[in-house]
């Protein structure tokens, strides 16, 4: 025997003698008995993953009200839901946030609540037409009141994902979770060797029409996902499934602090072992799957890579970054991923789940391009200006004079080599006078938030807003002061852009 077909496997499922292993069990079998034995003995390998998948959402159809409404704007539990279609079809996007409880409750939670059987409140408004005269609507619904309630996720199930860490001297909150300052921790996503797409990296069996475990029910792959990048081992899939049959244990709303809301989606894909190559591919181990360690402290598209790490190291709980041992959090639930692979295995063994052959293969050569931008990103270098400086041994009076003469609000404190030591503002001087302080040393702010010439103005302005400050010294790699950028400069720039 050198191959097996989906029909043969389904026949075995019907007869109740199909051999199914989870991806983890398959790896052990191949290790102990070799690929050939594994190919002979195993018909199907089940995989699983349970992670935050932001590009998810549900399509619902409400049926018509009387008098009917052509919904223009709608909210469910105060979460804005898009109105992409005709009159009463809505899309609940996982990342849309409640207008009353933003960052805590969002589209993902609405989907979970509906699946759990809870009541939700729908509000809608419209402009009214001759055929749809109604302009306002408020009603209470459960999933049973909906005609259709389908999960339609346009990017799920990343083959693998990066490991995130943070070089900044402050905690940052990202879609990769909370990242402590100075590489204080790291996070990763995905289930490694259990990840569905990692077990069929050439998309021999996963394609349009592949039946899968989706949120505790049976769903389908409907195409490649957006940003599908199989050449870089970063494939994705688009999936659809009937929410009314799903189990809230495998589909959960979630909130990432200061980032927003999302949906944890449970996906399991059966890989039919059609040939010996697939037996080998499904034996892939965590140590063979490497991902870059990426610095999320640098807010640019191509964030710096600090090295590579395998899922084996990631799952061990500790990795090494810049010679330092740091703890690393999985953001996907590896526990639930295993449960999904085991549940799918049981379904197949019990004849509750039959395999399908794809009706169309997924592309394996897709390019994942960055955005075409027709407006140039403005960098700090185009708004920077000369910084008024002083030395730390100068008197408060001298610095006060400089502030008046040069009519500025910020004086940057530097050493003999023009390296940054601190900053003094006109407010600091005012306060010093009020409190009777004489020494500049006592009023210098030493922990200074800075920027660089090549930082986008957008990023510099976010720093000022976050720290409630109005200027940033511009420094080079050696901390030499090259100038200063103030909120006034940015306001002027925005004014120019609007007028221009």
């Amino acid at each position, binding site marked *: 025997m050198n191959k097996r077909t989906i029909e043969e496997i389904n026949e075995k499922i019907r007869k109740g003698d199909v051999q199914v292993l989870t991806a983890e069990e398959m790896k052990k079998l191949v290790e102990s008995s070799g690929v050939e034995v594994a190919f002979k003995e195993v018909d199907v390998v089940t995989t699983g993953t349970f992670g935050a998948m932001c590009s998810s959402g549900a399509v619902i159809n409400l049926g018509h009200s009387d008098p009917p409404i052509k919904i223009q704007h709608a909210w469910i539990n105060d979460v804005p839901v898009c109105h992409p279609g005709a009159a009463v079809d809505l899309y609940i996007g996982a990342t849309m946030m409640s207008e009353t409880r933003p960052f805590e409750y969002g589209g993902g939670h609405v989907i979970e609540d509906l699946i759990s059987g809870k009541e939700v409140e729908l509000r809608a408004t419209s402009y009214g037409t001759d055929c749809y005269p109604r302009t306002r609507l408020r009603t209470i619904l459960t999933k049973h009141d909906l005609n259709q309630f389908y999960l339609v996720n346009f990017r799920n199930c990343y083959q693998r994902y990066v490991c995130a860490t943070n070089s900044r001297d402050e905690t940052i909150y990202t879609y990769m*979770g909370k990242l402590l300052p100075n590489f204080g921790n790291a996070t990763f996503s995905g289930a490694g060797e259990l990840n569905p797409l990692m077990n069929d990296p050439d998309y021999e069996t996963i394609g349009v029409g592949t039946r899968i475990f989706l949120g505790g029910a049976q769903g389908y792959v409907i195409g490649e996902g957006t940003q599908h990048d199989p050449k870089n081992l970063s494939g994705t899939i688009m999936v659809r499934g009937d929410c009314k049959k799903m189990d809230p244990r495998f589909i959960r709303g979630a909130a990432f602090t200061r980032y927003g809301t999302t949906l944890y989606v449970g996906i399991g894909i059966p890989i039919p072992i059609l040939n010996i190559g697939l037996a080998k591919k499904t034996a892939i181990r965590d140590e063979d799957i490497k991902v870059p360690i990426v610095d999320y402290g640098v807010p640019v598209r191509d964030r710096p890579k600090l090295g590579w790490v395998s899922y084996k190291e990631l799952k061990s709980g500790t990795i090494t970054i810049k010679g330092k041992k740091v703890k690393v*959090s*999985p953001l996907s639930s590896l526990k639930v991923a295993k449960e999904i692979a085991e549940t799918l295995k049981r379904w197949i063994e019990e004849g509750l789940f039959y395999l399908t052959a794809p009706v169309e293969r997924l592309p394996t050569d897709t390019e994942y391009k960055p955005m075409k931008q027709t407006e140039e990103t403005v960098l700090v270098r185009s708004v920077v200006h000369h910084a008024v400086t002083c030395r730390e041994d100068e008197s408060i009076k001298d610095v006060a004079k400089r502030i008046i003469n040069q009519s500025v609000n910020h004086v940057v404190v530097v050493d003999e080599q023009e390296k940054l030591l601190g900053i003094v503002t006109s407010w600091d001087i005012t306060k010093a006078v009020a409190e009777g302080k004489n020494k500049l040393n006592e009023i210098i702010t030493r922990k200074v938030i800075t920027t660089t010439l090549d930082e986008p103005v957008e990023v510099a302005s976010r720093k000022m807003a976050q720290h409630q400050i109005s200027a940033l010294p511009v420094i080079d790699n050696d901390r030499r002061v090259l100038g200063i950028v103030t909120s006034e400069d940015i306001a002027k720039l925005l004014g120019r852009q609007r007028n221009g």
Partner: protein
Amino acid sequence: MARILLRFPESIVDQPIISQVISEYNISLNILAARVNSQGGEILVEIPPEDVKRAVKLFRDRGITVAFPKLIEVDREKCLHCGACYSLCPAGAITINKEDFSVIFDYEKCIGSSCAACVDACPVRAITLSRELGLLERENEDKKINQEKVQS
């Protein structure tokens, strides 16, 4: 080590009670977190288990309220076992089981609201601070718990 929370009322905040207990009664005591001002204060300390009864009595006799805090609550029903909290815990109170990848909390190691790093990192908000330092209104509840603890 056992963890106890000491609450100082305003009237005795100026007295060196902790150093007295350490030096005069030879109890070794590790301060984990402290929040003290002129209105009173709260200090979370670790004490060797064999000294707990003696120390609690010494502190109570000096007018200090002693509580045995459970510093965080984890809603087991909500927890996804994603482990987002694991890498943030400086006290080693959160571990991940290497076999089934379940997330395990060791309440005795948790240092509570002086840290709270895990609380806002939980994507399903399963972790809450149960008895924050600074919430003096919970004192009565604490007293009840203390009595139970010391008696048992």
